[in-house]
Structure formats: C-alpha cells, structure tokens
C-alpha cells in the first residue's frame, strides 16, 4: 500500500522541462562551456539509453517468437516479429477477467477518493476551525505509516466484514491509502484559487453556491485531473494489498494476473510474459507521459491577472 501512498512530494512540482537551465554563467569561459556541455550531453544520452533499455527490451521481446528468445544470441530488434504473444494474452479469458476487476476497483477508488478528498480539501483550505491543524497533521503523519506492516490486520478487518475477495473491499483499503495524499494535493489547488474571485462574483449577484460552482470549480479542474491520475496510477499498479485481499484467482487484479502469468511461463515463454507486461504498462506510461507536464498548470495565476 505504501507504494500507494506517495509518488510525488507535496509542494514539489514535477518536471518543468520548458524552462531554460541557468547555469550557463557558472562556467568560466565560453569555449569551455560548450565543450563541457557537449561532454555532459553525451553522458546524459548514455544514461537515458541505459535507463530506458529495460522498457525497450520488454517491447522488443514481446514481438519475438519463442525460438528467437531462446536462441544462442539475442535479437536486438523486433525485425520479422510476431504478434502471436499478444494474441495469446488477448485470447486469454483470465486477462479480461483481471482487466474487469482492475477497472472496477479503479473506478470505485477514483470516485470515492476524489469526492471525499475534495470536500476535505475545501474544509481545510476555506475554513478556519478548531481541530483543523490536527487534521492536517494526521493527514501528513498517516502517509508515514509503513503500511506494509498493516496488511495483515487490514485483511482481518475486511474478513470480519465479509469484504475479502470483493472489489469493494479492495477499493476501500485503496481509497483510504490514497486519500491523505489526495487531500494534501487538492488542498494546494483549492488554496491557489483566491477567495476574492468568488467574492467578486458574489458582489456581482451570484449566490455563494453559484459562485463556487461557476467560478472556483472550473479553476480546480487541473487539480482534480492531477489527483485523479495519481489515484489511477496507484490503484492500477498496486500489488501488495491485492495479494493479501484478493486470494481467489477469479478476483485477481492485473498485477496479480501478471505475476501468475510469470509463474506459469517462467523459463518457458518470456515472450508471452513480456506481451502481458507491455499490455499493462503501455496505457499507464502513455497516460503518465501526457499528464506529467500538465499537472502544474498556471491557469489560476492567469485568472487573477486577467
């Protein structure tokens, strides 16, 4: 679950690739700058290639037939590849079963986490009340709990309520796991929309509720999207709690399904395993790449200036 609770640090925005590096002035001479820059660039590209290689290898292998994978020398390019591995996965009923389970869990988690976290974020950033600080502190500290130590007692609690092997049971523990971070994240976004915007709309004759939904809510969309993506990634990728809660093979989520695929194909057919991994990973990676840059949107500051 821990892998659940935090993937990004609160308050630390993600990549800002559009900005220009500023250290140009820190090198002493122009000539030296460009040489050292070139050397460092080459180093960076080598690191990039090394880092991406496992993912390349996953895709490459997923297109290889068994005889090529077990050949004396590896094939470095998927030339003359086959989609038989993907076929085999897609024709597998258990894959779609796991897909259904995973999707149901993710949808439930997203709905519950976004609504609940949004309400809580609203409370702590728009109101001052007794116990506010302790609530925020709890939200912070809960993220520090080594949840890997908690799974057995979570299993027990779910078992007591008849929620083991149920999508709702898994969704419950997932939601609780990502809520603290989601609240933390949305709190920043809500606080970023100045209350003056709402007040101005109220002066212009909107009701409090109207002002909130017509003015503030649209400005929170990027925050909700970011929090939603975060929740999606966590619930989609989580393994440990699913392993403990979903003991029935018919209720496997995709990561559990992948692990069982590995165990039945180990040392026999890595191509199928790689195809399965790629099918699970590629949508997530694509999603992640698209959204990463947009998570920190400057929409709010623009709204105030304009």
């Amino acid at each position: 679950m821990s892998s659940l609770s935090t993937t990004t640090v609160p308050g630390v925005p993600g990549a800002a690739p559009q900005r220009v590096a500023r250290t140009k002035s820190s090198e002493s001479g122009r000539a030296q700058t460009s040489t050292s820059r070139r050397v460092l660039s080459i180093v960076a590209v080598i690191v990039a290639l090394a880092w991406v290689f496992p993912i390349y290898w996953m895709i490459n292998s997923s297109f290889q037939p068994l005889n090529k994978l077990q050949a004396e020398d590896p094939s470095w390019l998927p030339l003359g590849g086959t989609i038989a591995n993907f076929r085999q996965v897609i024709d597998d009923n258990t894959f779609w079963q796991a897909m259904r389970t995973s999707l149901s869990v993710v949808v439930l988690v997203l709905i519950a986490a976004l609504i609940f976290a949004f309400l809580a974020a609203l409370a702590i950033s728009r109101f001052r009340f007794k116990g506010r600080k302790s609530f925020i502190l709890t939200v912070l500290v809960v993220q520090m709990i080594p949840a890997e130590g908690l799974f057995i007692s979570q299993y027990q609690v779910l078992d007591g309520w008849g929620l083991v092997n149920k999508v709702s049971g898994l969704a419950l523990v997932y939601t609780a796991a990502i809520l603290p971070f989601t609240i933390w994240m949305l709190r920043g976004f809500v606080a970023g929309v100045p209350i003056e915007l709402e007040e101005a709309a109220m002066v212009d004759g909107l009701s409090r509720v109207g002002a909130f939904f017509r003015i503030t809510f649209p400005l929170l969309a990027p925050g909700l999207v970011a929090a939603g993506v975060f929740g999606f990634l966590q619930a989609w990728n989580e393994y440990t709690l699913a392993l403990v809660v979903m003991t029935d093979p018919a209720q496997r989520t995709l990561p559990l399904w992948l692990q069982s695929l590995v165990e039945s194909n180990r040392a026999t057919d890595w191509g199928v395993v790689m195809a399965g991994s790629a099918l699970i990973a590629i949508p997530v990676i694509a999603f992640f790449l698209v959204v990463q840059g947009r998570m920190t949107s400057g929409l709010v500051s623009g709204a105030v200036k304009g």
Partner: protein
Amino acid sequence: MAATAPTEIGTTTPSAPIIRRRRPKFGAYGLLVPASILIGVALGYPLVRQFVISFQEYGLKQQFGAPAEWVGLQNYTDLLTDPYVWTVIGRSVAFCLVNAAITMIIGMSLAVLMQRIGRAARISLQVSLLLAWGTPVLASMTVWQWLFDTQNGVINWTLSNIFGMDSMAHHSWIIEPLSFFFVATVIVVWMSVPFVAFSVYAGLLQVPAETMEAAQLDGASARQRFWNITIPMIRPVLSIVLLLQVIWDLKVFTQIYTLQRAGAPTRETNLLGTLIYSYAKDFGLAGALATIMLVLTLALTGFYIRQMLKEDEL
C-alpha cells in the same frame, strides 16, 4: 455527502464574507466527515487493532473463533530473543540505507546534469526517466527478471560474450543472497531515481540566478557555489525526498517478494516486509513485528519529521 456539502456552505451568510472565515463552522466539520470515516475505518482501526493483537495469542485457532488470550509482551520477547529476527532487522536497515543513499546520489547527479546540458539531451533523459517512473511495479519486475534470466537473459549474454566473462554464461543471479540483494538494489534504484531526479531538478530551478551571479562576482568557485549556496537552498526538497526514500526502502515488499518467488531461498533473503507476510498464520506475531517496524521507521525518520513539521507552515 457530496450532495449535502455545498448546501452547508450555502447556509452561511453571503453578506459577510470576511467574518465567515473566522467563525467556527459546523459545515467545515461536515465536509471532513466522509474522509475521516474512511481513513479511520480502513487505516486507523486496523492500526489500533494490530497494536492490540500484538499483545495477544492469535494463531490459527483464534482465527477460527477461539477467544484470543492476552499474553502481554510474549510476542515481542519471542521476536526480540530470536537472532534470526535481528538478522532480518539488520539486513532491512542496511538495505534501506544503501538503497536510499545510492538513489539520492544518482538522482541528485542526474538533476544537476539536467541543468548543465543542452535541450535535446535533457529532454531525452527526462523522457527515459519518466518511462521508467511510469511503468507499473509488476511489469518492471517481470522485465528485470527476464533481463537477469539465467538461460537467455541479455545481461548474462552481454557479460559473457562482450566482456568475455565466460563464467557468467548461465549464471543464476538470485541464488546467492548477496547477489540477490544486488539485483534487488539495481531494480529499486532504477525505479526510484526518476522521482528523486525530477524533485531535485524542480528545486534547482528555483535557485535564483541573481544569487549565483552575486556569489560568482564575489569570487566563489563553481564548487563553492554548489556546496554553499545551491545545496542549502534546496535543502527542504532534499530532506523530504530523502525521508520518503528511507520510508519506502525500509518497507520494500513487492520487489523482494517477486524475486523470492522467482526461486531465491526465502530465509536468506527475507526483509521485514516479507518476514511479516510469512507470519500470516500468527496474527499476534505479525502484529508485534509490524509494530517493531513502525518504531524502527520512526527511529530512522523521527528527527527529520520533527524538523519538517517545525519548518512547515500548516
């Protein structure tokens, strides 16, 4: 709850927007209720329960309905007098510190590197880090198992055919504990570095250029500027990232568990997470060990957390 909440806001007097913020509001509490209940039910209650059970005899019999007996500190003394448990604790702490240190060093170096290279190189580095970051843990685990595969793994092939290490031709990487942890470290570092690199890079971008220029005019060398200005200025980012790495690496489970399933000897490769999992038959023992792990985490991170809370404006 979703439906009632906005109404509760609506009942406050709209004509006094400034007073509204100071007055205690039942509406605010109402907004907190759903989240609090959920966290309480699925995190708080299990946490308390686990703590209680750690003082009870709670084996298979109790799981099937027999009343649990209070045994005081029995579970804790059982664990803490077992030299094997101490071995695992030591192993976990060592694994955690080594991994956190390597991840931080590589992540910080890559962040600094990103700042000093051309646009094209930077973007290719960022994209490849993002790819590694976005890959689901289980998918990464299968790929790495395939890379390190004994028979047809590309790593063995490269070592024996390109570097001429013939003994590596059909080398099994996970049979030996030390080599097992080497593989685990490679995987954990590969997965964790992108987060560190991007966070530190975001911090570096916020160091004002004026400060650096002023220091340069005052005659500070590049090295001095880095250690005396940049590092202190990005300290908050560094400390939260380090804190999270230590927490994550201490409780690492999925990577170790899947590697063990790949055929490694369990007893020689257990860390705290997998050891707790292996106690699944005895909830009392598992609860006690989980509590020990929590205390250990707090011991390793408590100082940092206190400092962060002091500096952090809530």
